[in-house]
């Protein structure tokens, strides 16, 4: 099927890897070229701030499949290779080295990059962002040096990346100071009550967390020596990690004339404004039928499943992609999972003891669950995902009662 055709994939991350695998699984017999600007085969990023940063798992454990799989699948890997431009009219790519490559269909899976912090000294050695394997390796070395040298790890941003870095560093015995500009952790994702419980967990583990505090600038002579905070305090540190969000890598698509708007604009099949160009993962602005609106997600699940759906669409076997967004984070022995992207909710229901280590919060709108966040309760969260999909009107009293199984509410 499709022999003689060339499908190119820009971006060898989770979406790029799943695109290549799905094309072969679905019987594509043409040429597949996978371009990645990192030296590694496609890998999963979530462990970079969790198991790999802790040293529990080697870097290779993040690889989607063993490196020799791509030979077996006859996928041409062009790693350490940056695509400089796309010419949709010619169905051609130009690489950074000037080489040109023709394609019949193209997948753009360029993901995103860490949002840079615009303060003085952010370019000093020892100031890191966390997006790639190379970042994790450098931060791990910084944590080890901080432990042996008795210095601090300084974290900017009380979001998922910042908190996972703080947990990983603290768990290994490093002193950690974290600043968050807002008055709560994970301000975009968690309720104040949930965030307060998460804050307490970090404080109990000995992280020095400063809310309502930002970084003014970094100082050092080539290498980081200290961070100066908005309140004037100085924190001595040789390693800092900045986790303040992500910027979608839309430039290639925009320069090629594709429609972009907070991401590459695609339809429910992952097709861009050019019928032969698709996109998947963190870089896409896509419609979500279940939510009834367009969204851009920074999510492991979306990177995988949107790519699988879009790869099928490249073969004209498209299935409309739409699922309830789902995220997770691991910090110490705490697993946090979130489902949905709740908007304008009018009621929050807590299920579980407010002081117990496991609970779930439901966010309701017009009597239906629009989203939920759970601590150490993945099972209830999964049933909640289904309750959201069914858009069933639920009884708040039943939701709040842990003795009523969600399975029963779902079936009832």
């Amino acid at each position: 099927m499709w022999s003689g055709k060339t499908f190119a994939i820009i971006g060898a991350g989770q979406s790029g890897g799943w695109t290549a695998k799905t094309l072969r699984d679905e019987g594509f017999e043409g040429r597949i070229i996978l371009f990645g600007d990192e030296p590694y085969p496609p890998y999963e990023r979530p462990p970079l701030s969790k198991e790999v940063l802790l040293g529990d798992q080697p870097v290779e454990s993040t690889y989607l499949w063993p490196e020799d799989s791509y030979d077996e699948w006859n996928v041409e890997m062009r790693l350490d290779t940056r695509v400089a431009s796309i010419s949709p009219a010619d169905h051609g790519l130009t690489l950074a080295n000037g080489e040109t490559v023709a394609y019949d269909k193209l997948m753009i899976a360029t993901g995103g990059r860490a949002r840079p912090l615009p303060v003085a000294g952010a370019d000093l050695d020892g100031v890191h962002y966390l997006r790639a394997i190379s970042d994790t390796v450098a931060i791990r070395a910084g944590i080890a040096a901080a432990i042996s040298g008795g210095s601090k790890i300084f974290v900017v941003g009380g979001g998922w990346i910042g908190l996972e870095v703080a947990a990983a560093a603290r768990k290994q015995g490093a002193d950690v100071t974290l600043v968050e500009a807002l008055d709560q952790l994970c301000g975009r994702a968690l309720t104040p009550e949930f965030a307060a419980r998460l804050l307490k967990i970090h404080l109990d583990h000995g992280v020095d967390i400063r809310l309502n505090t930002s970084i003014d600038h970094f100082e050092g002579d080539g290498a980081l020596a200290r961070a100066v905070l908005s309140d004037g305090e100085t924190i001595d540190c040789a390693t800092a990690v900045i986790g303040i969000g992500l910027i979608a890598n839309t430039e290639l698509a925009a320069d090629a004339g594709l429609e972009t708007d907070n991401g590459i604009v695609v339809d429910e099949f992952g097709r861009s404004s050019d019928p032969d160009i698709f996109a998947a993962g963190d870089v896409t602005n896509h419609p979500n039928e279940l939510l009834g609106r367009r969204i851009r997600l920074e999510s492991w699940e979306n990177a995988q499943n949107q790519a699988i759906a879009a790869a099928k669409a490249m073969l004209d076997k498209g299935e409309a992609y739409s699922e309830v967004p789902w995220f997770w984070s691991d910090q110490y022995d705490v697993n946090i999972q979130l489902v949905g992207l709740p908007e304008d909710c009018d009621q929050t229901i807590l299920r579980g003891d407010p002081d117990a280590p496991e609970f779930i919060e439901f966010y309701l709108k017009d009597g239906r669950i629009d989203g939920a966040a759970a601590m150490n309760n993945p099972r209830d969260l999964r049933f909640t995902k289904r309750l959201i999909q069914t858009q069933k009107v639920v009884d708040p009293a039943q939701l709040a009662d842990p003795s009523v199984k969600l399975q029963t509410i779902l079936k009832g």
Partner: protein
Amino acid sequence: MSDIEFHNVAKTTSLDEDEAVQVLVNGQEIAIYNLDGTYYATDDICTHAYASLADGYIEGTNIECPLHGGCFDIKTGKATTAPCTVDLKTYEVKIEGEDILVGIPSD
């Protein structure tokens, strides 16, 4: 040639329909499932990452891993959705009265 040794691991009364439970047999984690009154057993630990499938979500004959949402067919152990690609081992189950017995190779 290994023999199958049956172990009494749970009671049928302790497992509602479409529920699963983790049991230990010689230190090995096994998941026991109740699908509409028929019982099945597979390895309990997901082949993709470390998670107990007994904490997962059963839909039809699929068990969905609670960690990343990958699925396996409970009857065959076959990995059915991403990110799972390696199948689970399955084990024979016998019911004696209210006892659920699972057959584990004894080599």
